[in-house]
Protein backbone atom coordinates (compact mmCIF):
# COMPACT_ATOMS: atom_id res chain seq x y z
CA UNK A 1 0.00 0.00 0.00
CA UNK A 2 1.15 3.56 -0.67
CA UNK A 3 2.10 5.98 2.11
CA UNK A 4 -0.17 9.02 2.35
CA UNK A 5 2.00 10.77 4.90
CA UNK A 6 5.79 10.70 5.02
CA UNK A 7 8.16 12.40 7.43
CA UNK A 8 11.87 12.24 6.67
CA UNK A 9 14.58 13.32 9.12
CA UNK A 10 12.40 15.99 10.67
CA UNK A 11 14.08 18.24 13.22
CA UNK A 12 12.50 20.90 15.39
CA UNK A 13 13.70 22.86 18.37
CA UNK A 14 12.28 25.68 20.45
CA UNK A 15 15.10 27.86 21.68
CA UNK A 16 17.67 25.54 23.16
CA UNK A 17 15.20 22.68 23.59
CA UNK A 18 15.47 20.08 20.84
CA UNK A 19 11.99 18.54 20.54
CA UNK A 20 12.37 16.38 17.42
CA UNK A 21 15.86 15.18 16.54
CA UNK A 22 15.46 12.87 13.57
CA UNK A 23 11.85 11.89 13.13
CA UNK A 24 11.23 9.57 10.22
CA UNK A 25 8.09 7.56 9.60
CA UNK A 26 5.32 7.01 7.11
CA UNK A 27 1.64 6.20 7.41
CA UNK A 28 -0.05 4.00 4.84
CA UNK A 29 -3.17 5.22 3.13
CA UNK A 30 -6.35 4.07 4.84
CA UNK A 31 -4.68 2.95 8.08
CA UNK A 32 -5.11 4.16 11.65
CA UNK A 33 -1.82 5.18 13.20
CA UNK A 34 -1.59 5.45 16.98
CA UNK A 35 0.87 8.16 17.94
CA UNK A 36 2.01 7.70 21.51
CA UNK A 37 4.55 9.49 23.65
CA UNK A 38 5.14 11.06 27.05
CA UNK A 39 3.98 14.60 27.82
CA UNK A 40 6.19 17.04 25.96
CA UNK A 41 7.57 14.32 23.68
CA UNK A 42 6.64 16.39 20.63
CA UNK A 43 3.39 14.80 19.42
CA UNK A 44 1.50 18.09 19.08
CA UNK A 45 4.56 19.74 17.50
CA UNK A 46 4.72 16.92 14.93
CA UNK A 47 1.05 17.40 14.12
CA UNK A 48 1.45 21.15 13.75
CA UNK A 49 4.44 20.57 11.46
CA UNK A 50 2.31 18.28 9.29
CA UNK A 51 -0.32 21.04 9.14
CA UNK A 52 2.27 23.67 8.20
CA UNK A 53 1.54 25.59 11.41
CA UNK A 54 5.14 25.32 12.61
CA UNK A 55 8.38 25.80 10.72
CA UNK A 56 10.65 22.81 10.12
CA UNK A 57 14.29 23.21 11.17
CA UNK A 58 15.30 20.38 8.86
CA UNK A 59 13.79 17.41 7.04
CA UNK A 60 10.77 17.03 4.83
CA UNK A 61 7.10 16.20 5.23
CA UNK A 62 4.87 15.12 2.36
CA UNK A 63 1.11 14.57 2.33
CA UNK A 64 -0.19 12.73 -0.73
CA UNK A 65 3.17 13.30 -2.45
CA UNK A 66 2.94 17.07 -1.93
CA UNK A 67 5.56 18.74 0.24
CA UNK A 68 4.23 20.58 3.28
CA UNK A 69 5.40 24.18 3.35
CA UNK A 70 5.05 26.43 6.36
CA UNK A 71 2.34 29.03 5.93
CA UNK A 72 1.07 27.52 2.68
CA UNK A 73 -2.16 25.65 2.50
CA UNK A 74 -2.04 23.40 -0.55
CA UNK A 75 -1.63 20.20 1.48
CA UNK A 76 -4.12 21.28 4.15
CA UNK A 77 -7.08 20.82 1.83
CA UNK A 78 -6.49 17.06 2.18
CA UNK A 79 -6.30 17.20 5.98
CA UNK A 80 -8.87 17.29 8.75
CA UNK A 81 -7.57 18.40 12.14
CA UNK A 82 -9.08 17.78 15.53
CA UNK A 83 -7.07 19.58 18.24
CA UNK A 84 -7.09 18.45 21.88
CA UNK A 85 -9.04 21.52 23.00
CA UNK A 86 -10.83 22.96 19.97
CA UNK A 87 -11.39 26.72 20.22
CA UNK A 88 -14.30 28.30 18.41
CA UNK A 89 -15.98 31.64 17.90
CA UNK A 90 -18.56 31.51 20.65
CA UNK A 91 -20.89 33.93 18.90
CA UNK A 92 -21.43 31.57 15.93
CA UNK A 93 -23.83 28.65 15.80
CA UNK A 94 -22.49 25.17 15.00
CA UNK A 95 -23.99 25.42 11.51
CA UNK A 96 -22.40 28.81 10.87
CA UNK A 97 -19.01 27.55 12.04
CA UNK A 98 -19.21 24.46 9.85
CA UNK A 99 -20.31 26.64 6.93
CA UNK A 100 -17.17 28.79 7.40
CA UNK A 101 -14.97 25.67 7.63
CA UNK A 102 -16.59 24.19 4.52
CA UNK A 103 -16.02 27.36 2.51
CA UNK A 104 -12.38 27.56 3.62
CA UNK A 105 -11.69 23.98 2.54
CA UNK A 106 -13.15 24.73 -0.88
CA UNK A 107 -16.33 22.67 -0.57
CA UNK A 108 -19.05 23.47 -3.06
CA UNK A 109 -21.74 25.83 -1.77
CA UNK A 110 -24.59 23.56 -2.87
CA UNK A 111 -23.13 20.53 -1.09
CA UNK A 112 -22.63 22.25 2.26
CA UNK A 113 -26.15 22.34 3.81
CA UNK A 114 -26.68 18.60 3.31
CA UNK A 115 -23.19 17.68 4.47
CA UNK A 116 -23.48 19.89 7.57
CA UNK A 117 -26.81 18.30 8.44
CA UNK A 118 -25.24 14.85 8.06
CA UNK A 119 -22.24 15.69 10.19
CA UNK A 120 -24.27 17.31 12.99
CA UNK A 121 -26.48 14.22 13.09
CA UNK A 122 -23.41 11.95 13.10
CA UNK A 123 -21.97 13.69 16.18
CA UNK A 124 -25.38 14.09 17.83
CA UNK A 125 -25.50 17.89 17.85
CA UNK A 126 -28.76 19.74 17.23
CA UNK A 127 -29.08 21.94 14.16
CA UNK A 128 -30.54 25.02 15.82
CA UNK A 129 -29.76 28.63 16.68
CA UNK A 130 -27.82 27.81 19.87
CA UNK A 131 -24.48 29.60 19.86
CA UNK A 132 -21.25 27.75 20.58
CA UNK A 133 -20.52 29.71 23.78
CA UNK A 134 -23.37 27.77 25.39
CA UNK A 135 -21.88 24.38 24.48
CA UNK A 136 -20.44 21.97 27.06
CA UNK A 137 -16.87 20.70 26.63
CA UNK A 138 -18.15 17.41 25.25
CA UNK A 139 -20.37 19.22 22.72
CA UNK A 140 -17.39 21.31 21.61
CA UNK A 141 -15.34 18.16 21.15
CA UNK A 142 -18.12 16.64 19.05
CA UNK A 143 -18.32 19.80 16.97
CA UNK A 144 -14.54 19.40 16.53
CA UNK A 145 -15.12 15.95 15.07
CA UNK A 146 -17.77 17.33 12.71
CA UNK A 147 -15.53 20.11 11.42
CA UNK A 148 -12.57 17.76 11.03
CA UNK A 149 -14.54 15.30 8.91
CA UNK A 150 -16.70 17.83 7.08
CA UNK A 151 -14.74 17.89 3.81
CA UNK A 152 -14.09 14.13 3.80
CA UNK A 153 -10.34 14.61 4.31
CA UNK A 154 -7.87 12.01 3.07
CA UNK A 155 -5.84 12.47 6.26
CA UNK A 156 -7.38 13.04 9.68
CA UNK A 157 -5.14 14.26 12.49
CA UNK A 158 -6.56 13.80 15.99
CA UNK A 159 -4.60 15.27 18.90
CA UNK A 160 -5.80 13.58 22.09
CA UNK A 161 -9.39 13.73 20.92
CA UNK A 162 -11.01 11.60 23.60
CA UNK A 163 -9.74 13.49 26.64
CA UNK A 164 -12.92 15.59 27.04
CA UNK A 165 -15.43 12.87 26.22
CA UNK A 166 -17.46 10.82 28.69
CA UNK A 167 -17.16 7.00 28.40
CA UNK A 168 -20.16 6.71 26.07
CA UNK A 169 -18.94 9.59 23.91
CA UNK A 170 -15.46 8.07 23.83
CA UNK A 171 -16.79 4.73 22.66
CA UNK A 172 -18.90 6.39 19.95
CA UNK A 173 -15.93 8.43 18.81
CA UNK A 174 -13.67 5.38 18.58
CA UNK A 175 -16.37 3.50 16.67
CA UNK A 176 -16.65 6.46 14.30
CA UNK A 177 -12.89 6.47 13.71
CA UNK A 178 -12.85 2.70 13.22
CA UNK A 179 -15.65 3.03 10.65
CA UNK A 180 -13.39 5.32 8.58
CA UNK A 181 -10.69 2.65 8.26
CA UNK A 182 -9.80 2.10 4.64
CA UNK A 183 -11.20 5.39 3.35
CA UNK A 184 -9.46 7.93 5.60
CA UNK A 185 -5.92 7.76 6.93
CA UNK A 186 -5.90 8.65 10.62
CA UNK A 187 -3.17 9.78 12.97
CA UNK A 188 -4.43 9.41 16.48
CA UNK A 189 -2.44 10.75 19.39
CA UNK A 190 -3.55 9.88 22.90
CA UNK A 191 -2.49 9.07 26.43
CA UNK A 192 -5.24 6.48 26.71
CA UNK A 193 -3.39 3.43 25.49
CA UNK A 194 -6.53 1.30 25.62
CA UNK A 195 -7.96 3.46 22.83
CA UNK A 196 -4.89 2.83 20.69
CA UNK A 197 -5.12 -0.93 21.33
CA UNK A 198 -8.77 -0.83 20.34
CA UNK A 199 -8.60 0.82 16.95
CA UNK A 200 -5.07 1.36 15.67
CA UNK A 201 -3.41 -0.74 12.96
CA UNK A 202 0.03 0.65 13.60
CA UNK A 203 1.62 2.21 16.66
CA UNK A 204 4.46 4.72 16.78
CA UNK A 205 6.08 5.57 20.11
CA UNK A 206 7.83 8.92 20.18
CA UNK A 207 10.76 9.04 22.56
CA UNK A 208 13.55 11.62 22.83
CA UNK A 209 12.64 13.22 19.51
CA UNK A 210 12.66 9.99 17.50
CA UNK A 211 10.11 7.33 16.72
CA UNK A 212 11.48 4.58 18.95
CA UNK A 213 9.11 1.98 17.51
CA UNK A 214 6.78 1.93 14.54
CA UNK A 215 5.06 -1.42 14.21
CA UNK A 216 1.74 -3.16 14.09
CA UNK A 217 0.38 -4.10 17.50
CA UNK A 218 0.81 -7.81 16.75
CA UNK A 219 4.47 -7.34 15.86
CA UNK A 220 5.03 -5.13 18.88
CA UNK A 221 3.59 -7.76 21.21
CA UNK A 222 5.90 -10.37 19.71
CA UNK A 223 8.90 -8.07 19.85
CA UNK A 224 8.31 -6.97 23.44
CA UNK A 225 6.69 -10.19 24.62
CA UNK A 226 7.16 -10.52 28.36
CA UNK A 227 4.64 -13.12 29.46
CA UNK A 228 3.58 -13.10 33.08
CA UNK A 229 1.59 -15.40 35.28
CA UNK A 230 -0.74 -13.58 37.63
CA UNK A 231 -1.58 -15.29 40.93
CA UNK A 232 -4.44 -14.19 43.18
CA UNK A 233 -4.79 -15.27 46.82
CA UNK A 234 -7.52 -15.05 49.46
CA UNK A 235 -5.56 -12.59 51.59
CA UNK A 236 -2.30 -10.69 51.84
CA UNK A 237 -0.71 -13.21 54.29
CA UNK A 238 -1.23 -16.10 51.85
CA UNK A 239 0.18 -13.97 49.03
CA UNK A 240 3.27 -13.11 51.11
CA UNK A 241 3.79 -16.79 52.08
CA UNK A 242 3.50 -17.74 48.41
CA UNK A 243 6.02 -15.04 47.47
CA UNK A 244 8.51 -16.50 49.98
CA UNK A 245 7.93 -20.03 48.63
CA UNK A 246 8.40 -18.87 45.03
CA UNK A 247 11.43 -16.72 45.99
CA UNK A 248 9.86 -13.48 44.72
CA UNK A 249 12.31 -10.68 45.48
CA UNK A 250 9.84 -7.77 45.15
CA UNK A 251 7.80 -6.81 48.21
CA UNK A 252 4.22 -8.09 48.02
CA UNK A 253 1.67 -5.54 49.27
CA UNK A 254 -1.50 -6.92 47.66
CA UNK A 255 -3.10 -10.37 47.66
CA UNK A 256 -2.02 -10.59 44.03
CA UNK A 257 1.32 -10.61 42.22
CA UNK A 258 2.74 -11.49 38.83
CA UNK A 259 5.64 -13.71 37.84
CA UNK A 260 7.46 -13.06 34.57
CA UNK A 261 8.71 -16.16 32.76
CA UNK A 262 10.27 -17.39 29.56
CA UNK A 263 9.48 -20.52 27.60
CA UNK A 264 6.31 -22.62 27.58
CA UNK A 265 3.53 -21.28 29.78
CA UNK A 266 2.08 -24.71 30.64
CA UNK A 267 5.37 -25.98 32.01
CA UNK A 268 5.96 -22.84 34.09
CA UNK A 269 2.40 -22.84 35.47
CA UNK A 270 2.69 -26.50 36.47
CA UNK A 271 5.98 -25.88 38.23
CA UNK A 272 4.58 -22.90 40.19
CA UNK A 273 1.45 -24.77 41.23
CA UNK A 274 3.47 -27.79 42.40
CA UNK A 275 5.67 -25.56 44.58
CA UNK A 276 2.61 -23.82 46.10
CA UNK A 277 0.74 -27.06 46.79
CA UNK A 278 3.85 -28.52 48.42
CA UNK A 279 3.77 -25.54 50.81
CA UNK A 280 0.02 -26.03 51.32
CA UNK A 281 -0.88 -22.72 49.67
CA UNK A 282 -3.76 -22.66 47.20
CA UNK A 283 -4.23 -19.64 44.91
CA UNK A 284 -7.75 -18.41 44.16
CA UNK A 285 -6.94 -17.69 40.52
CA UNK A 286 -4.13 -18.21 38.04
CA UNK A 287 -4.16 -16.08 34.86
CA UNK A 288 -1.91 -15.67 31.88
CA UNK A 289 -1.18 -11.97 31.30
CA UNK A 290 -0.67 -10.72 27.76
CA UNK A 291 1.86 -7.97 27.16
CA UNK A 292 -0.13 -4.73 27.07
CA UNK A 293 0.68 -1.60 25.10
CA UNK A 294 1.30 0.05 28.45
CA UNK A 295 4.04 -2.52 29.23
CA UNK A 296 5.56 -1.95 25.80
CA UNK A 297 5.36 1.83 26.18
CA UNK A 298 7.03 1.76 29.58
CA UNK A 299 9.73 -0.57 28.25
CA UNK A 300 10.41 1.73 25.28
CA UNK A 301 10.54 5.02 27.19
CA UNK A 302 12.49 3.80 30.24
Amino acid at each position, binding site marked *: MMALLELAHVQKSFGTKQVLTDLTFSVEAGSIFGFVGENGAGKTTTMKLILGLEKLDAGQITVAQQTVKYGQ*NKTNQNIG*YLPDVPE*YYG*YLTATEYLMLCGH*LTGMHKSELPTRIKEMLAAVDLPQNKQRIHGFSRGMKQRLGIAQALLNRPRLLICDEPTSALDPAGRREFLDLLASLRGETTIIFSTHILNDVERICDQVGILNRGRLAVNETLVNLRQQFARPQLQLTFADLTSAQQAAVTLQVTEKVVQPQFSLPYQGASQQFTGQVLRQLLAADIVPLAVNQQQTSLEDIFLEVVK
Partner: protein
Amino acid sequence: MKVMWYFTHKEILEAWRKHHLLIIGLIFMIFGIESPLIAKILPDILHSSFGSNLVINIPQPTSVDSWQQFYKNITQMGIYVLAIIFSGFMSQEVSQGTLVNLIAKGLPRFIVVLAKFLVAYLQWCGAILLAFVITWGYTAYYFPDNKSPQPLLGLVPLLIFGLFFTALLLLGSTLAVNNYFGFLFAAGSIIALTILNMWKSVQRWNPVALMTDNLRLVQGTEKLAHISPALMLTLGLTIVLVTLTIIIFNHKRL
Protein backbone atom coordinates in the same frame (compact mmCIF):
# COMPACT_ATOMS: atom_id res chain seq x y z
CA MET B 1 -11.16 36.41 -3.15
CA LYS B 2 -13.96 34.13 -2.01
CA VAL B 3 -11.97 33.21 1.09
CA MET B 4 -11.50 36.92 1.81
CA TRP B 5 -15.26 37.39 1.71
CA TYR B 6 -15.96 34.40 3.99
CA PHE B 7 -13.54 35.60 6.65
CA THR B 8 -14.70 39.21 6.30
CA HIS B 9 -18.28 38.00 6.77
CA LYS B 10 -17.17 36.30 9.98
CA GLU B 11 -15.54 39.53 11.16
CA ILE B 12 -18.73 41.51 10.44
CA LEU B 13 -20.79 38.93 12.35
CA GLU B 14 -18.33 39.25 15.24
CA ALA B 15 -18.66 43.04 15.29
CA TRP B 16 -22.45 42.72 15.29
CA ARG B 17 -22.88 39.88 17.78
CA LYS B 18 -20.25 41.12 20.22
CA HIS B 19 -22.17 44.44 20.20
CA HIS B 20 -19.19 46.44 18.91
CA LEU B 21 -21.39 48.09 16.28
CA LEU B 22 -24.02 48.97 18.88
CA ILE B 23 -21.47 50.46 21.30
CA ILE B 24 -19.69 52.41 18.57
CA GLY B 25 -23.02 53.57 17.12
CA LEU B 26 -24.28 54.82 20.47
CA ILE B 27 -21.07 56.63 21.42
CA PHE B 28 -20.66 58.34 18.07
CA MET B 29 -24.34 59.24 17.96
CA ILE B 30 -23.82 61.03 21.28
CA PHE B 31 -20.78 62.82 19.83
CA GLY B 32 -22.89 63.81 16.83
CA ILE B 33 -25.70 65.26 18.95
CA GLU B 34 -23.46 66.73 21.62
CA SER B 35 -21.11 68.75 19.40
CA PRO B 36 -23.63 71.31 18.04
CA LEU B 37 -25.65 71.22 21.25
CA ILE B 38 -22.66 72.15 23.42
CA ALA B 39 -21.75 74.93 20.96
CA LYS B 40 -25.32 76.21 21.17
CA ILE B 41 -25.73 76.17 24.95
CA LEU B 42 -22.16 77.04 25.97
CA PRO B 43 -22.91 80.81 26.33
CA ASP B 44 -25.93 80.02 28.52
CA ILE B 45 -23.86 77.62 30.63
CA LEU B 46 -21.18 80.29 31.11
CA HIS B 47 -23.77 82.97 32.00
CA SER B 48 -25.45 80.74 34.55
CA SER B 49 -22.06 79.70 36.00
CA PHE B 50 -20.83 83.25 36.58
CA GLY B 51 -24.22 84.69 37.58
CA SER B 52 -25.71 88.05 36.67
CA ASN B 53 -23.20 90.09 38.76
CA LEU B 54 -20.29 89.43 36.40
CA VAL B 55 -20.65 90.96 32.96
CA ILE B 56 -18.79 88.93 30.35
CA ASN B 57 -18.93 89.42 26.65
CA ILE B 58 -19.42 86.05 24.96
CA PRO B 59 -19.77 86.15 21.16
CA GLN B 60 -22.78 84.45 19.62
CA PRO B 61 -21.90 80.82 18.69
CA THR B 62 -21.67 79.92 15.01
CA SER B 63 -21.41 76.78 12.89
CA VAL B 64 -17.61 77.01 13.28
CA ASP B 65 -17.98 76.40 17.04
CA SER B 66 -20.13 73.38 16.32
CA TRP B 67 -17.56 71.88 13.90
CA GLN B 68 -14.75 72.76 16.30
CA GLN B 69 -16.54 70.82 19.01
CA PHE B 70 -17.09 67.94 16.59
CA TYR B 71 -13.41 67.59 15.60
CA LYS B 72 -12.34 68.01 19.23
CA ASN B 73 -14.63 65.17 20.30
CA ILE B 74 -13.62 62.83 17.48
CA THR B 75 -9.85 63.40 17.65
CA GLN B 76 -9.52 63.63 21.43
CA MET B 77 -12.01 60.98 22.47
CA GLY B 78 -13.53 59.18 19.51
CA ILE B 79 -10.38 57.66 18.12
CA TYR B 80 -9.38 56.35 21.53
CA VAL B 81 -12.80 54.76 22.00
CA LEU B 82 -12.27 52.95 18.70
CA ALA B 83 -8.71 52.08 19.73
CA ILE B 84 -9.98 50.43 22.92
CA ILE B 85 -12.57 48.42 20.99
CA PHE B 86 -10.12 47.29 18.28
CA SER B 87 -6.98 46.94 20.38
CA GLY B 88 -7.31 43.18 20.91
CA PHE B 89 -8.64 42.23 17.50
CA MET B 90 -5.53 40.28 16.54
CA SER B 91 -3.94 39.41 19.89
CA GLN B 92 -7.21 37.95 21.19
CA GLU B 93 -7.53 35.56 18.24
CA VAL B 94 -3.95 34.39 18.73
CA SER B 95 -4.18 34.00 22.51
CA GLN B 96 -7.52 32.17 22.34
CA GLY B 97 -6.31 29.83 19.60
CA THR B 98 -9.42 30.32 17.45
CA LEU B 99 -7.38 30.82 14.28
CA VAL B 100 -5.49 27.51 14.49
CA ASN B 101 -8.32 25.49 13.04
CA LEU B 102 -9.07 27.92 10.24
CA ILE B 103 -5.42 28.31 9.24
CA ALA B 104 -5.12 24.52 9.34
CA LYS B 105 -8.04 24.39 6.90
CA GLY B 106 -6.23 26.56 4.42
CA LEU B 107 -7.11 30.12 5.40
CA PRO B 108 -4.13 32.21 4.22
CA ARG B 109 -2.67 34.33 7.00
CA PHE B 110 -2.59 37.51 4.93
CA ILE B 111 -6.36 37.22 4.48
CA VAL B 112 -6.76 37.34 8.27
CA VAL B 113 -4.79 40.60 8.40
CA LEU B 114 -6.56 42.19 5.43
CA ALA B 115 -10.07 41.19 6.55
CA LYS B 116 -9.50 42.50 10.08
CA PHE B 117 -8.08 45.73 8.70
CA LEU B 118 -11.00 46.16 6.31
CA VAL B 119 -13.74 45.50 8.88
CA ALA B 120 -12.11 47.72 11.52
CA TYR B 121 -11.72 50.52 8.98
CA LEU B 122 -15.33 50.17 7.86
CA GLN B 123 -16.37 50.55 11.49
CA TRP B 124 -14.14 53.64 11.75
CA CYS B 125 -15.78 55.16 8.67
CA GLY B 126 -19.27 54.18 9.83
CA ALA B 127 -18.72 55.70 13.27
CA ILE B 128 -17.32 58.97 11.96
CA LEU B 129 -19.89 59.30 9.19
CA LEU B 130 -22.71 58.71 11.67
CA ALA B 131 -21.44 61.43 14.00
CA PHE B 132 -20.73 63.72 11.02
CA VAL B 133 -24.22 63.42 9.51
CA ILE B 134 -25.89 64.09 12.86
CA THR B 135 -23.61 67.07 13.56
CA TRP B 136 -24.19 68.40 10.05
CA GLY B 137 -27.96 68.22 10.47
CA TYR B 138 -28.04 69.89 13.88
CA THR B 139 -25.44 72.48 12.85
CA ALA B 140 -27.56 73.50 9.86
CA TYR B 141 -30.58 73.70 12.18
CA TYR B 142 -28.99 75.59 15.09
CA PHE B 143 -26.58 77.78 13.09
CA PRO B 144 -27.94 78.64 9.66
CA ASP B 145 -24.90 80.72 8.71
CA ASN B 146 -22.37 80.47 5.91
CA LYS B 147 -19.24 80.37 8.03
CA SER B 148 -18.57 76.68 7.36
CA PRO B 149 -18.89 76.30 3.60
CA GLN B 150 -16.88 73.06 3.23
CA PRO B 151 -18.00 70.58 5.91
CA LEU B 152 -17.21 67.55 3.73
CA LEU B 153 -13.69 68.71 2.98
CA GLY B 154 -12.79 68.59 6.66
CA LEU B 155 -13.99 64.99 6.86
CA VAL B 156 -11.84 63.59 4.02
CA PRO B 157 -8.48 63.80 5.89
CA LEU B 158 -10.05 62.27 8.99
CA LEU B 159 -11.29 59.28 7.00
CA ILE B 160 -7.82 58.86 5.46
CA PHE B 161 -6.21 59.21 8.88
CA GLY B 162 -8.43 56.27 9.90
CA LEU B 163 -6.55 54.02 7.48
CA PHE B 164 -3.26 54.89 9.18
CA PHE B 165 -4.66 54.60 12.70
CA THR B 166 -6.32 51.24 11.97
CA ALA B 167 -3.03 49.96 10.50
CA LEU B 168 -1.20 51.11 13.65
CA LEU B 169 -3.70 49.30 15.87
CA LEU B 170 -3.42 46.18 13.73
CA LEU B 171 0.37 46.14 13.93
CA GLY B 172 0.30 46.82 17.68
CA SER B 173 -2.22 44.05 18.23
CA THR B 174 -0.16 41.60 16.14
CA LEU B 175 3.01 42.39 18.08
CA ALA B 176 1.10 42.23 21.33
CA VAL B 177 1.09 39.62 24.02
CA ASN B 178 -2.03 41.17 25.56
CA ASN B 179 -4.96 43.33 24.54
CA TYR B 180 -3.63 46.56 26.03
CA PHE B 181 -0.43 46.61 24.01
CA GLY B 182 -2.28 47.27 20.75
CA PHE B 183 -3.95 50.33 22.30
CA LEU B 184 -0.74 51.58 23.93
CA PHE B 185 1.21 51.11 20.70
CA ALA B 186 -1.28 53.15 18.64
CA ALA B 187 -1.80 55.82 21.31
CA GLY B 188 1.96 56.08 21.90
CA SER B 189 2.59 56.49 18.16
CA ILE B 190 0.01 59.30 17.93
CA ILE B 191 1.53 61.06 20.94
CA ALA B 192 4.99 60.78 19.33
CA LEU B 193 3.66 62.23 16.05
CA THR B 194 1.94 65.04 17.95
CA ILE B 195 5.25 65.94 19.62
CA LEU B 196 6.91 65.90 16.17
CA ASN B 197 4.31 68.43 15.04
CA MET B 198 6.03 71.04 17.20
CA TRP B 199 8.58 71.41 14.38
CA LYS B 200 7.01 73.53 11.68
CA SER B 201 8.98 71.89 8.88
CA VAL B 202 7.33 68.49 9.49
CA GLN B 203 3.78 69.77 9.97
CA ARG B 204 2.72 69.46 6.33
CA TRP B 205 4.10 65.91 6.22
CA ASN B 206 2.88 64.68 9.54
CA PRO B 207 -0.14 62.30 9.47
CA VAL B 208 -1.39 64.16 12.55
CA ALA B 209 -2.11 67.12 10.24
CA LEU B 210 -5.08 65.08 8.99
CA MET B 211 -6.79 65.57 12.34
CA THR B 212 -5.58 69.05 13.23
CA ASP B 213 -6.29 71.08 10.07
CA ASN B 214 -9.92 69.97 9.62
CA LEU B 215 -11.54 73.15 10.90
CA ARG B 216 -9.57 75.38 8.53
CA LEU B 217 -10.66 73.13 5.67
CA VAL B 218 -14.31 73.38 6.79
CA GLN B 219 -14.06 77.18 6.96
CA GLY B 220 -12.43 77.30 3.55
CA THR B 221 -9.32 79.07 4.85
CA GLU B 222 -7.08 76.16 3.87
CA LYS B 223 -7.03 74.00 0.74
CA LEU B 224 -6.70 70.25 0.77
CA ALA B 225 -3.57 70.64 -1.34
CA HIS B 226 -1.84 72.18 1.67
CA ILE B 227 -1.86 68.87 3.50
CA SER B 228 -1.45 66.71 0.41
CA PRO B 229 2.13 65.70 1.48
CA ALA B 230 0.67 64.41 4.77
CA LEU B 231 -2.14 62.67 2.86
CA MET B 232 0.34 60.91 0.57
CA LEU B 233 2.68 59.98 3.39
CA THR B 234 -0.23 58.65 5.45
CA LEU B 235 -1.37 56.42 2.60
CA GLY B 236 2.19 55.22 2.05
CA LEU B 237 2.72 54.53 5.76
CA THR B 238 -0.56 52.61 5.86
CA ILE B 239 0.67 50.28 3.10
CA VAL B 240 4.00 49.83 4.91
CA LEU B 241 2.29 49.09 8.25
CA VAL B 242 -0.15 46.56 6.76
CA THR B 243 2.67 44.83 4.85
CA LEU B 244 4.77 44.73 8.01
CA THR B 245 1.82 43.25 9.92
CA ILE B 246 1.41 40.52 7.30
CA ILE B 247 5.12 39.65 7.49
CA ILE B 248 5.07 39.53 11.29
CA PHE B 249 1.84 37.53 11.40
CA ASN B 250 3.25 35.03 8.87
CA HIS B 251 5.98 34.23 11.40
CA LYS B 252 3.77 34.25 14.47
CA ARG B 253 3.31 30.99 16.36
CA LEU B 254 -0.34 30.04 16.71
